[in-house]
């Protein structure tokens, strides 16, 4: 019954992501001006775009090349356009997989933490969003304004009081405290609310007539048809968690609990003797996200520009 609803398509129409535009048929070259100027214009445009795209990719290519170079040398001389092709080797790769100390522990910690945080954040935030989207109740607009307010205040302004707070609660140096304050995540709530607003209310009434409870309607009817919103928010939150740095930097003390960004940061000391690991480790930390991006580009863009979908 549920599967036939139009909602099951790629999300409510008002959220058409930028990727949608690509699929629109291109208009025939006609209209103002003679044909050749369009062709010339197209070539100039293509050249311009390619040059900028290549410039944007330079830092990523540089770190990739750096994984084949001597780490100490890269740190001393910086990343250069002059690449000594003869000096490239797979030594760092061998080191990474045999003798990289805590690296894969950090990697594993980040992976577990990210998966747990994403699953819980999606559940809790969509739960909250459902309340805002589907009911009328007293104080609704006030509380929703609070969501918007929380959404706009940067975490940096909250970090010190929050740090003091969790220290007093005895939660410092735990994963709980990394996850807990951000489960009801404002941007995610906002995004899900927008999505739920596009779901026909008849669907809920049908569920109620069938005797499904209010929570049952959410878990058994609404969640299953919200996969596109889930995907976009899973990716957004996954990226935020995987890259999360400031908050873990404040609360984590024990080296065995370090996540990938925290661990990499410890390698960046002036007295470091592990610069090979710094470069190749930084590069490998990008790989999960890059792979996901190539597979789910559309959801990435939709998720990361979620804040702008103002109702």
């Amino acid at each position, binding site marked *: 019954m549920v599967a036939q609803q139009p909602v099951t398509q790629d999300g409510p129409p008002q959220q058409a992501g*930028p990727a*949608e535009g690509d699929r629109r048929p291109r208009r025939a070259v006609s209209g103002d001006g003679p044909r050749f100027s369009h062709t010339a214009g197209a070539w100039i445009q293509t050249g311009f*775009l390619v040059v900028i795209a290549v410039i*944007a990719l330079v830092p990523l290519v540089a770190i990739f090349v750096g994984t084949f170079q001597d780490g100490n040398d890269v740190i001393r001389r910086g990343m250069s356009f002059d690449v000594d092709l003869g000096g490239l080797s797979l030594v760092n790769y061998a080191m990474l997989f045999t003798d990289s100390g805590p690296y894969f522990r950090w990697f594993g910690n980040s992976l577990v933490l990210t998966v747990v945080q994403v699953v819980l954040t999606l559940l809790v935030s969509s*739960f909250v969003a459902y309340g805002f989207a589907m009911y009328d109740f007293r104080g609704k607009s006030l509380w929703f304004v609070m969501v918007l307010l929380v959404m706009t205040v940067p975490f940096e302004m909250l970090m010190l009081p929050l740090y003091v*707070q969790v220290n007093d609660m005895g939660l410092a140096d735990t994963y709980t405290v990394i996850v807990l304050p951000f489960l009801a995540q404002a941007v995610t709530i906002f995004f899900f609310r927008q999505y739920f607003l596009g779901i026909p209310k008849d669907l809920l009434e049908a569920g109620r007539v069938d005797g499904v409870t209010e929570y049952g309607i959410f878990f058994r009817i609404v969640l299953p048809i919200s996969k596109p919103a889930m995907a976009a928010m899973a990716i957004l939150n996954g990226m935020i968690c995987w890259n999360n740095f400031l908050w873990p930097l404040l609360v984590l003390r024990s080296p065995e609990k370090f996540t990938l960004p925290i661990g990499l940061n410890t390698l960046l000391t002036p007295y470091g003797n592990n610069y090979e690991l710094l470069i190749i480790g930084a590069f490998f930390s990008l790989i999960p996200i890059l792979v996901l991006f190539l597979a789910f580009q559309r959801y990435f863009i939709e998720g*990361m520009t979620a804040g702008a979908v103002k109702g």
Partner: protein
Amino acid sequence: MKEILYSKRLAPYIFILPFLVTLAVFWVVPLGRSFVMSTQEVLYGQATFIGADNYERLLRDQIFWQAMFNSLRYMVLTIVLLVPIPLVLAAVVSSKIGSPRVKAFFKASLFVPALTSVVVAGIVFRLIFAESDSAMMNQIAEFFGLGPVRWLRADISGLVALLSLALWRWTGVNMMYFIAGMQSIPTEYYEAASMDGAGRVRQFLHITVPNLKPTIVYVVTISIYGGLAMFLESFMLYAGNNSPNNQGLTVVGYLYRKGIEENDLGFASAVGVVLLTIVMAINLTYLVATGTFKKEES
């Protein structure tokens, strides 16, 4: 009991309960305490009320004003760079000419930097802006006939490195906002302008920009917050919270130094309260000036 919990009247509150608890425990209480602490001297867990002393100390603190100057300068410059550049790029990509494949490649290439963590981006930019004459930026400088620059040692060149990092990471995201906004501008507007003989540039200035106002306001608003709250970019670029003559120190960096590194919680809380007030004031002024509130009322 179960009946009440499952009733349609109580259900919405149960649904939003996790948010209300989060708001209370992790926002309202800490921020309230922060405000209280800013009037105290907090030493080894012992708090003594000292009134406005922390604020007076703050006003006379030169390093605080330097940090404030750095943050404001960074905020203004990121807005100056990260609104017009992505806007023009978005217009170029949204034009009907050109190959969709090239455009897709372009969008992906500009978007990917936003996926990198600030740690990785900081490491890479530190090495691109390294001091040796073989580092990328010095090779470019040499091409233009400039000697090797010790980028992170001097104020302005350090700022260039910092802004490059910001530009690299955020151009793509802002561009996506603008592209999304441009898709909702009716094509008839352009057709009409085209018939009136308006060229591409005039169409951009007189149709695209005015119609994108909500998106522009949004991007500027998040840039104000983001710019004034900037900390990690500087922290990574300078490999720590210390930079030559504090040239890379921001207000949040100063808050971090005082609160976390020196454990002077009272004073650091005062820094936080002042920062939050300034951010709110700037943003409210901006939103009122652009008429954003008026629109919501009508």
